């Protein structure tokens, strides 16, 4: 993307005012999307974003500037702006010798979306629309979206690192509205992987459309969710957003360093029930949060955060790791070249246990089974978090009975981790997610086996 000699000169310009660390992050992203709604292919969109972000670190201060101009003049101007923002005291010239770091994803992209005819993408939309609409006469509206992007990045820094990556992601979602006597309900299904058009060899679009429609239709008969505390069973693959919120964000080193996490000073301590092992794993092939290198050029890693209930480590980016004299855990990510990296999750999941998932439900006298989770949110300083249930059922006398309307569940991270009293043997990853932090969104994955939390507060309206 940029010649090595140019990178060296740009880093030199960035360090001219006495910076201790400088970095060039260049990105070239092509994306395409197609949307079908209300029975029509509304539009296809193509996008191109290309530019570089340059940061300079002096003491505790980071200066940052970005530019869409990838010529040497444009990059040097951005480097000077970043250096001015960081305002180092000293001066002088430093020369950086760059060493290219090999990166490997461990698998090949089979069908680059840019090489796939647009007509084939459109055909998927209309097919999913047809299937969803034929799933039930109560299906009153369907929207289908397809998206792909190819993101090439280059990272060069004053430690001599030079690394490049080329990532392809493909996404597909079906959203349905069902209308009945009780009003309207919605159902959505999405798939997304760090792969090309072969996504559609991995999944059956018809099945996806049927499931989305089925979810909306089921909820037409749903009763209001209960209000108050009861046991909650989370189904395998329904989404691990529970752990993403309950402990994931609280284990990000930048928040820990500011004292803004209930998990500060707790490494080595028991923070969860025995048997609970939580991992953040950027290396997980083809998953939505998969990366070969992070956005600071560090290789993705599999990091065990909680091992058999004991907190083992936080997640780290370059900046935080530098301050602590340790290595980054490969969790420095950013939305685009226009953003500074920070500590972010990749694929966060809970390892399977030994329980039979059917037994977990059967041994629950009265509770809620959440089969599909929506998003969530956490206040890391207090540990209080919510997550939505988009498909849930009442459990009565160990049997799954009536469907429930949507709502949030609320709990406190450290408390909920201690209340996990059953772990199924049926681990599965959930649908693709976008994690928002400080205004930046990055793709993340999550997964859980069937599990039970002995008590969570369910935010419905029924007594």
């Amino acid at each position, binding site marked *: 993307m940029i010649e090595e000699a140019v990178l060296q000169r740009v880093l030199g310009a960035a360090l001219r005012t006495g910076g201790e660390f400088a970095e060039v992050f260049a990105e070239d992203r092509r994306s395409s999307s*197609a949307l079908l709604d209300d*029975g*029509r*292919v*509304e*539009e*296809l*969109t*193509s*996008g*191109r*974003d*290309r*530019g570089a*972000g340059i940061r300079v670190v002096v*003491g*505790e*201060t*980071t*200066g*940052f*500037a*970005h530019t869409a101009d990838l010529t040497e003049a444009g990059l040097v101007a*951005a480097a000077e702006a970043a250096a001015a*923002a960081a305002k180092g005291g000293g001066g002088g010239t430093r020369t950086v010798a760059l060493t290219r770091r090999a990166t490997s994803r461990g698998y090949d992209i089979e069908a680059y979306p840019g090489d796939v005819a647009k007509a084939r993408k459109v055909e998927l939309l209309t097919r999913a629309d047809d299937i969803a609409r034929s799933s039930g006469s109560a299906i*009153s*509206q369907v929207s289908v979206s397809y998206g792909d992007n190819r993101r090439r990045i280059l990272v060069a820094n004053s430690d001599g690192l030079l690394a490049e990556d080329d990532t392809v992601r493909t996404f597909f979602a079906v959203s349905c*509205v069902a*209308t009945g006597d009780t*009003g*309207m*309900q*919605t159902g959505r299904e999405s798939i997304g992987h760090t792969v090309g058009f072969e996504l559609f060899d991995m999944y059956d679009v018809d099945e996806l459309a049927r499931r989305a429609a089925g979810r909306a239709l089921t909820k037409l008969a749903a009763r209001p969710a209960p*209000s*108050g505390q009861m046991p909650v069973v989370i189904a395998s693959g329904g989404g691990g957003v529970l752990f993403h919120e309950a402990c994931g964000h609280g284990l990000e080193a930048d*928040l820990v360093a*500011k*004292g*803004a996490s*209930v998990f500060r000073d707790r490494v080595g301590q028991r923070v969860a029930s025995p048997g609970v092992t939580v991992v953040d794993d950027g290396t997980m092939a083809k998953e939505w949060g998969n990366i070969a290198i992070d956005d600071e050029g560090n290789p993705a890693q599999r990091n065990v955060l909680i091992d058999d209930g004991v907190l083992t480590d936080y997640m780290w980016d370059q900046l935080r790791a530098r301050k602590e004299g340790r290595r980054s855990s490969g969790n420095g990510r950013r939305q685009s070249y226009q953003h*500074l990296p920070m500590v972010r999750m990749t694929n966060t999941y809970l390892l399977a246990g030994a329980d039979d998932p059917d037994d977990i439900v059967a041994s629950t006298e009265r509770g809620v089974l959440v089969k599909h989770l*929506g*998003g*969530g*949110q956490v206040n890391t*300083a*207090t540990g*209080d*978090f*919510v997550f*939505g249930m988009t498909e849930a059922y009442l459990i009565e006398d160990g049997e799954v009975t009536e469907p429930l*309307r*949507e*709502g*949030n569940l*609320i709990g406190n991270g450290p408390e909920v981790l201690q209340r996990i009293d059953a772990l199924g043997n049926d681990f599965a990853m959930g649908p693709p997610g976008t994690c928002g932090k400080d205004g930046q969104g990055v793709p993340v994955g999550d997964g859980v086996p069937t599990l039970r939390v002995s008590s969570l*507060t*369910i*935010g419905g*309206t029924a007594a």
Partner: protein
Amino acid sequence: MTDELLELADRVVAMARPGEQVEAVVVRGTDTEIKVYGGQVESLSSAQSQGVGIRVVVDGRQGFAYAGSLDEVAITETLADARDNAGFATHDEHAGLAEPDGVPVQELDLHRDGLSTFGPDAKVALAIELERAVLGADPRISGIESAEYVDGVSEAAVATTTGIRSSGRETSCYVATYAMATEGGDTQTGFGFSVGREPAELDVARAAGEAAERATRMLGATQPPSGRLTVVLDPWVTAQFLGLLGYTLNGDAVQKGRSLFADRLGEAVASPLVTLVDDPTDTRAFTATDTDGEGLATRRNVLVADGVLERFVHNAYTARRAGTVSTGNAVRGFKSTPSVDCLFLSLAPGTADPAELVASIAEGVLVQEVSGLHSGVNPVSGDFSTGAEGLRIRGGELAEPVREFTIASTLQKMLHDVQAVGSDLQFLPMNAAGVTLVVGDVTVSGS
């Protein structure tokens, strides 16, 4: 500078082939973001960004493409992509660009030269002053999660083959902070902010004071028992509630069968105390704008009057489909085609201030913060459930802090259950104004 963007948009439009409608949106912005921590600058970002979005409509089919660059090569490629994409859309008789509608654009004063003359050192000083004020506000303040100063200068131009030519520029800035308060091992957080068009309009002391107050008053919070209570929504929470409501009133949701209120025009959908107006021409609004995303004049639209549903909002497409005219509510960035949404919603304020409203409530909860609006509220079904924290109200007075509970109802029911609208209209960094709102019969789920 803005003229330059309009000329660029004109050049794109001039490339239209016979039978093609072409629209170009060109934007450029300069943004500064300063975060401070421990009395020092943690990060200072300063950058220019730009982009172009091109829409092509040919024979009832629409295509779109964008590029985050204004160079000639990128523009030519973008136009070609948009043109190619149009070939894959389904024919739609209503597809098309906005056309001049004769509604004069009100020249709003949204740009301040004061922002560009305010140097980086002065911006840093503001952010440091903010952090210092938070830390000094109360001995129980244990730190900050963040303290930042952010500003932006943005310019945009829209031109079309149908005769739209519009451009504008604006400035905005804000300071925001999250404070942490700690007492006996219990940590709570609270945020505060101040927004303006130039730094002179920012009230750093107020932002710091609010953050400290919100954090300290939550210390010792416990989970409340479940029950049905009257809730008092803090202006910040009300504004978020209005944002959700706005979705149900947009012409696209109405036409596609995703609005609760699709068939309810002329009916009482809310308490008579509710008058809801969308008015982006109100210059006090953070999202004020004189033209919409398609270059049409924005205007004041009364959506609900004394509880009766009066109107939906439209862009050019949804208006054409509904057989009416655009209400000037096209919303977009350069990376997307125009959608339709409310631009600046506000409730007509009542006469009682927040203290008077609380004094009128025997048993209730003041909700100062909600979470999970995106995960527990479904604007299509109307199901409403969010995480919440705040203060109990007992005998007309604010009592103990409560947290880890949810409030739940439905959007339909909440509108009818509005018991009072406060007099305390506030302008927040979002597309709705805040005001204290009293809603009866809400389910509180806790212990």
